[in-house]
């Protein structure tokens, strides 16, 4: 069954494929037949127009001369050239090279770059600032040597001799004086000691029980 809508869509393709004669099914429908003829005329005229727009041969002589000049001015891009030139062009190509990247990938790369940049900056700031000095109070126990003075009365049992004579008394005094003279303790080099050994002798005193 003929369908004008689908047929009209086919007409363009038929004409662009080079069909010049209407298919039989188009002849049965006046609308489609007119569509075919009008589009055929449109394509014919536009094609004729492009041929008419072509400049004359004189123009082409000038065109080719100008093209030749531009090619010469641009230089020989694939010539071997000097090493410096080839190095320069290689560098220029490297600098001006571009690659096409999908937008999401590009955005993700940019975000990652920005994030890492922020992290690096933060780290650098941390390193640059001097460490803050904090005072911490910690109680420390230091042993203090305390000198104790212990006073103790020590009673020493002494043998009381009955001195019979005064002569003996004087001799005794002189011998005591000698012994005292000999036994006088010197304090040089004396060091107090922490430990005091005491010997308590019971019964040393008559009052002691």
């Amino acid at each position, binding site marked *: 069954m003929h369908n004008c809508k689908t047929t009209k869509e086919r007409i363009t393709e038929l004409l662009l494929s080079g069909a010049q004669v209407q298919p039989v099914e188009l002849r049965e429908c006046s609308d489609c037949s007119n569509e075919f003829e009008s589009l055929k005329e449109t394509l014919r005229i536009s094609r004729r*127009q492009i041929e008419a*727009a*072509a400049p004359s041969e*004189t123009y082409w002589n000038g*065109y080719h001369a100008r093209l030749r000049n531009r090619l010469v001015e641009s230089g020989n891009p694939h010539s071997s050239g000097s090493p410096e030139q080839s190095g320069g062009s290689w560098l220029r190509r490297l600098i001006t090279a571009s690659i096409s990247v999908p937008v999401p990938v590009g955005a993700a790369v940019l975000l990652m770059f920005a994030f890492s940049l922020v992290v690096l900056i933060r780290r650098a700031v941390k390193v640059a600032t001097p460490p803050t000095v904090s005072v911490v109070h910690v109680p420390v126990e230091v042993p203090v040597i305390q000198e104790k003075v212990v006073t103790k009365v020590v009673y020493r049992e002494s043998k009381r001799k009955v001195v019979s004579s005064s002569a003996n008394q004087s001799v005794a005094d002189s011998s005591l004086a000698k012994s005292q003279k000999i036994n006088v303790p010197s304090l040089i080099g004396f060091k107090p000691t922490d430990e005091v050994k005491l010997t308590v002798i019971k019964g040393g005193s008559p009052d002691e029980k």
Partner: protein
Amino acid sequence: MNDSETDLIRRAQAHDAEAFCSLAELYTRRIYLLALHYCHDASDAEDLSQEVWLKAYQALQSFRFDSSFYTWLRRITINTFLNYQRSNFSRKSLVVSSEDEDTGSSLASEETIYNNVLFESVMNALGELTPSQRLIFLLRHYEGMSYDEIANAMNCSAGTAKKSVWRALGKLRNKLEINNEGTEDRLAQLATEY
């Protein structure tokens, strides 16, 4: 690709600039007309088409004879056209009247006027399309590329390419006021009034 063309390509790849110029002369008209219908202006068309040749000259080493030279060149042409700044499009009415154009007489012939009227009508119709739609129409109608080839080259779907061609044809038909009844006569009448 015939032998002489292959020979020219090989010589051009071996740094023979003259060979490249000879190779270019085989296709300059085709590229120029495509550029002319794309950008609507004769001087812009010359710049654009010569830009195509400069790029081809720089990239010639990459041609590996995997396809025809023109297929390779057309790829460069499409990319160059798409990169062409839209702001560069000037909606001048064309007349290919450069200094090189030899009219031969100050009085243009009737045929020249007729062609100018025809050209302006077609250009106005194409001017109502977007640059991409216009290029798709030119590639399909003038270059005979398939929709798949166009879709691949233009980075769009085959459906989009088809719609662009239909739209362009519709605009052209309306601008040319084609109704199967004496279109040629009407254009001739316009040329007389011009």
